[in-house]
């Protein structure tokens, strides 16, 4: 089972890397926000799978925190973005 976990970890890392590239080079600023959001949700899944890979299920607390922080960060971005006009 640990090999499956390891393979899943690597695959989620690949997805996160692709989302990171999208957040770095994006045509519009909303694409960056999209990339960060995807990075955040994949991080939650990565932490959960890594916890089971290393046999330490206490990591699930951190996964919960990340899910919360991802959401609150997104809401903060959208809120402050509506104040400043987009500069392209």
């Amino acid at each position, binding site marked *: 089972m640990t090999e499956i976990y390891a393979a899943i970890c690597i695959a989620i890392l690949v997805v996160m890397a692709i989302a990171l590239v999208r957040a770095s080079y994006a045509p519009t600023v909303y694409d960056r926000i999209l990339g960060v959001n995807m990075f955040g949700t*994949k991080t939650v899944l990565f932490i959960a799978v890594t916890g089971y890979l290393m046999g330490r299920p206490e990591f699930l607390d951190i996964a919960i925190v990340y899910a919360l922080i991802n959401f609150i960060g997104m809401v903060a971005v959208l809120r402050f973005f509506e104040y400043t006009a987009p500069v392209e």
Partner: protein
Amino acid sequence: MFVLDIISSILLIAGVFFGLSGAVGLFKFPDFFTRVHAASITDSIAAILIIGGLLLQTSFDLNTAKLLFILAFLMITSPTASHALAKSARHGGLLTLAEVKEEKEEKQQEQSH
């Protein structure tokens, strides 16, 4: 227990497959609103499958409750965040691909008149 392992592995691999397809979709799709589709839909299904695969590995204890909590939270907040993002983009004036093409055609028609 071997059957549980096999089912877990299938769910995990399916979840990762959807995640990868969502990441590819972030680059392949032509317009921002279609990219939001790719990212948010595949995020939700990947979360369900991966956490479902992990749920089968736990015995019925606190970790099961935490995994279910993570799943419920992701189900509620991830589509909401995508919706808020798309609504913000629309308010900010971003046009869909069809509307951009319409504007170009209108301008060309005005120029040719």
